């Protein structure tokens, strides 16, 4: 009996602890979404602590079309797609090369990639800026290349460990069928590392979607800015139009939250991929 009671109390205590932390995570977002449906005067009256009277989409219309938010969204989608496609192709080719093929200097080059993961981004700020400036690439292409580079090391490492585990037999069978190396990579290699590719895609997609520092460095034209940089611009301009700011934040956050809840396993795998390396 005593043991039973103690156990129940422990469970209750544990849940109280967990629920309170969970609430602290969720509440701000409910508040944010709630405020996004309010008018400014409604918000001024209750600070967003009462439920919005109706699903008022005015703010969304204002932010997306009048505030030019659609452009940031399109930009972010383009950057994310392009970068992830580049990374998937380039890193899977390289990982295949490191894992299955031989050439002089292979190990040294591979360790170079590994070591690069250690070098923090700020060390390269100025030269990257100066370089892109010189090449006239302070625009979309420059950003996509720079972001591709940032994702490469980890992606190559992840994919290489997967390629390493593939049995040789498959490769041999494909070779007998007359496949060249590129075809083996495409027909045999890629399909077999598909799970790892999923992780690579999510990790990099999230990384690009959420990236701010390089975007701030590279983009001078507002029309090229991705969502995160656009958010800073937008809030700087709107200042005390709280409901519009919250709408902008909701637009930026909600797709990710929904996608995450739908695919949370892959997300967790993707984001903790960095940890696997250690």
């Amino acid at each position, binding site marked *: 009996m005593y043991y039973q009671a103690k156990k129940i109390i*422990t*469970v209750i205590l*544990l*849940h109280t602890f*967990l629920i309170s932390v*969970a609430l*602290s*995570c*969720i509440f701000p*977002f409910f508040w*944010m979404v709630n405020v996004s449906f309010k008018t400014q005067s409604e918000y001024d009256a209750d*600070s967003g*602590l009462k439920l919005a009277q109706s699903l008022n989409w005015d703010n969304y219309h204002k932010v997306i079309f009048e505030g030019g938010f659609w452009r940031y969204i399109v930009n972010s989608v383009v950057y994310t797609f392009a970068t992830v496609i580049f990374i998937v192709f*380039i890193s899977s080719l*390289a990982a295949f*090369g*490191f894992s299955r*093929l031989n*050439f002089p200097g292979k190990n040294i080059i591979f360790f*170079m990639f590994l070591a690069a993961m*250690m*070098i*923090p*981004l*700020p*060390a*390269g*700020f*100025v030269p*990257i800026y100066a370089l892109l400036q010189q090449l006239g690439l302070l625009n979309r292409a420059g950003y996509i*290349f720079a972001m*591709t*580079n940032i994702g*490469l090391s980890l992606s*190559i490492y992840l994919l290489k460990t997967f390629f390493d585990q593939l049995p040789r037999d498959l490769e041999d069978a494909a070779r007998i069928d007359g496949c060249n*190396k590129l075809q083996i990579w495409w027909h045999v290699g890629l399909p077999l590392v598909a799970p790892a590719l999923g992780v690579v895609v999510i990790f990099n997609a*999230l990384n690009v*979607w*959420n*990236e*701010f*520092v390089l975007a*701030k460095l590279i983009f001078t034209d507002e029309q090229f800015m991705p969502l*995160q940089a656009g*958010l*800073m611009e937008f809030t700087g301009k709107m*200042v005390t139009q709280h409901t519009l*700011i*919250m709408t902008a*934040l909701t637009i*930026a*956050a909600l797709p*990710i*939250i929904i996608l*995450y809840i739908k695919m*949370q396993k892959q997300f*967790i795998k993707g*984001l*903790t991929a960095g940890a696997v390396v*250690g």
Partner: protein
Amino acid sequence: MNASFKENSLNFSFVAPALFIFSIFYIYPFFYSFILSLTNYDLIGDFNFKNYYVGFSNFRDVFTDKDWWKSMYNGGYITFWALTFQNILAFALALAVDKVVRLKKFYRVVFFILPVLSEIIIGLLMKQLLIGEPTGRNVFNNLLNSAGLGFMAQDWIGGDRVRMITALVHCWKGFGWAFVILFAGLQTIPEQLYEAAKIDGANAWQQFRKITIPLVMPVITLVVVLTILGTMQAFAMILALNAGAGGETTVPVMIIFSHLGGASKLAGLACAEGLILGAILVAVSFSMFFVSKKVREKYGVLPS
């Protein structure tokens, strides 16, 4: 000979695209950064190393620059809170979630929402919640007041405790991520070990100390390294939250940015700062991995 050369170059071509981008964005910048750091080039005229050369004075300037070390201190302060408060909280949550039966998945999903979102979103959202009149609506203070915690109400964005508050917001954003890694670490501990310990009469604390801690030690080291690397480079969240708050929450990356902006002759200085920050972080993470290796050797376990 010829055939093998052809073979080698064919094989190499698989790696070539990656290496190409890598050389442009890592190797070249690294050397260029070093060269620029020896100059006072203003990024405007044509670059001529001889005309702009100033020796190592940029590095000397950084080392003797109080503002730079203040920003390192600010970064270190936030890192300290992330290492202790954030990671202990994450560990406690991981242990708790590991213990409970119900709602396990719910907690896991909820705790990881914050790391999935960008730093900008978190920073701007928290600013809206925390900022008072005339810019904001003082939402958080009002909440505290109505919860009977009015004594805690204060100026969260520009008050004299702003550094601590920034650190806490940073921890709030980051704990979920440490939680997931630590939780995964806990899952790898076989249940039988606990069973055996119970039979031997070990109480919960003893189990925790003798089994849990040693077995997740490598994961903890990992979390520590990643926390340091991540926090010392923090920038976007703080920029969105309070933009440095008069130097109180100015972090190294902000200083680098401020020296890079415009066309002052401080690009070389910014390079030197970037290199010094990079060197310190590389040194820290290598030494931490060295420690981690020692720890692993000592306990004789390797995490999956």
